């Protein structure tokens, strides 16, 4: 990766390699030192934690992979049902919400880039603005609006004398959260796609137009292939984001205590395990398993995105 991303080493650089070899570290060193403290050390520590169990008598005992067996189950058992139900929920969230969000973002980016829109810079900045809103504020706002007391849902119910489905009910709360997350991140993803579209050389469009290609043909044959890299990256970020889902359900818990359980998402589960249940060792195990699953899926998406290119 580095070879492709970094400018090919110049002859002069290569000649001075002996002298330059430490110079880069003067600049990169501070980042890596803090990175070691807040990223690598905790990862190492959580792996250590996951191999132990706190006993009532005798303190921490080494238990090998027992904590992992509790997640995955031994042959013949199903493992930890709460973890798997949480994982299933975020997986459902992922396959429904991420395509909707990225699809809208892509359409908006194409529309703004295509030059067929009135007032496009107003559109660009306005649709991006929700990204600047903290998840806490976004969730509170939407949570209030969803409500039937002083929210818009309540307004509509009273105005038309109808009874709308409760957006905080167990069946709908995941969709309600999906809407909040979509609202927060459509603009951000749009901007990533838009930035990628801006770099496509003008000559390609001119050549295509001379050849008689229409707008949709240009989108399909030039624009989409050219921004595939950006799409893959946005997809990977969204996958990571979905698997880490925490803020929105955690804040909505006040408004929908019956629908959002302590194991609503894997992240929420790991949090409850350690801060309500004091089960630090098992919580670390859950977090590691979740990290590995996330990395595996992100890697699979990356491979797929690359293969299609060939």
């Amino acid at each position: 990766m580095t070879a492709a991303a970094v400018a090919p080493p110049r002859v002069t650089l290569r000649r001075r390699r002996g002298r330059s070899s430490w110079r880069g570290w003067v600049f990169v060193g501070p980042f890596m030192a803090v990175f070691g403290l807040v990223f690598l050390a905790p990862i190492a520590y959580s792996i250590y934690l996951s191999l132990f169990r706190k006993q009532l008598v005798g303190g921490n005992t080494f238990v090998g992979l027992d904590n992992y067996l509790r997640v995955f189950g031994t042959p013949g058992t199903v493992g930890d049902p709460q973890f798997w139900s949480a994982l299933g929920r975020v997986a459902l969230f992922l396959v429904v919400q991420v395509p909707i969000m990225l699809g809208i973002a892509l359409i908006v980016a194409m529309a703004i880039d295509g030059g067929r829109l009135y007032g496009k810079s107003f559109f660009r900045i306005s649709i991006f603005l929700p990204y600047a809103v903290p998840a806490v504020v976004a969730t509170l706002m939407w949570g209030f609006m969803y409500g039937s007391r002083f929210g818009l849902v309540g307004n509509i119910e009273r105005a038309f004398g109808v009874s709308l489905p409760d957006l905080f009910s167990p069946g709908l709360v995941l969709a309600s959260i999906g809407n909040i997350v979509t609202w927060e991140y459509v603009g951000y993803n749009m901007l990533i796609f838009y930035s990628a579209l801006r770099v496509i050389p003008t000559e390609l469009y001119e050549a295509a137009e001379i050849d008689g290609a229409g707008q949709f043909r240009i989108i399909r044959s030039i624009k989409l292939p050219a921004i595939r890299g950006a799409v893959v990256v946005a997809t990977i970020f969204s996958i990571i984001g979905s698997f880490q889902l925490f803020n929105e359900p955690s804040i909505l818990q006040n408004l929908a205590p019956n629908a959002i359980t302590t194991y609503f998402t894997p992240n929420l589960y790991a949090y409850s395990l350690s801060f309500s249940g004091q089960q630090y060792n098992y919580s670390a195990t859950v977090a590691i398993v979740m990290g590995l699953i996330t990395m595996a899926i992100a890697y699979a998406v990356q491979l797929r995105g690359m293969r299609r290119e060939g």
Partner: protein
Amino acid sequence: MTTTPRTVPTPRRTAPSPFRPALRRPSARRPAAGRGHSVDRPRRSPTLTVLMGLILVYSLVPLAWLLINASKTQASLFDSFGLWFSGPFALWDNIVETLTYDDGVFVRWLGNTVLYVLLGAGGATALAVIGGYGLAKFAFRGKRAVFAIVIGAVAVPGTALAVPTFLMFSRMGLTNTPWSVIIPSLISPFGLYLMWTFAQEAIPTEMLEAARVDGASELRTFTRISLPLLGPGIVTVALFTMVATWNNYFLPLIMLRDPDWYPLTLGLNAWNAQAATVGGEAIFNLVITGSLLTILPLVAAFLLLQRYWQSGLAAGSVKG
């Protein structure tokens, strides 16, 4: 991110010469004529504008709702239509009450947030800028390893780190202090990556070599030649780390017990939760007004610095 170098076709983006001047003059990149359509400039489409208008409304309605309802008293919140003004115009009263409620605890939270942003996001930007510059412009041993470790770490979920970080910090006696929020905020892998790609394009290696031939030290070369060229990239990274720190909820939630150290996000959530507790006073008008005050600085920063961060993001995120 790992994908980018391979998934973005290299030949198309390695024509650095036409883009380099554009990096420094962002406006040059978007000529008013609608770049790319000089042969047959597409007509503006009302249908498309209306369609996009729907998405625009979706994006802005919650913000309008917040603004409108921040002007209502708690009583009129409950008996008026949400998307129009009603009752006495209480915006100023609400702001005053938000700022003074509970001995001005909101101001204290605001001060905490500013502290975390200045030290956390400021430090994160500085580390990302010098680190990205080092990766872009120096050949050194272990560079591939740095890249692989940082990119791999991005995929690790927040909780995988949060719980062990909390336990580590609690052994070090750092929990429930500002440091427990500031130190983890110092690392922004996304910022590092953005600065790396940005520095590659924005700083011609020949300029650095010329400066070295003239006998300038590495530090002087960096501050005098490179830093000024990195301007839009620095603004971009600063803005995005600022948003991340200002909006941070999970990390302070874990680290802080004492409400005196809460940032705004935790404070607002505590105010909202107050209504649900037994004997707690419902202060929805203050939650709404406080939310409005919380988002104003960031919205203002994004609007005022548009020029800079959009060109910085364009240069960095094409590959990112």
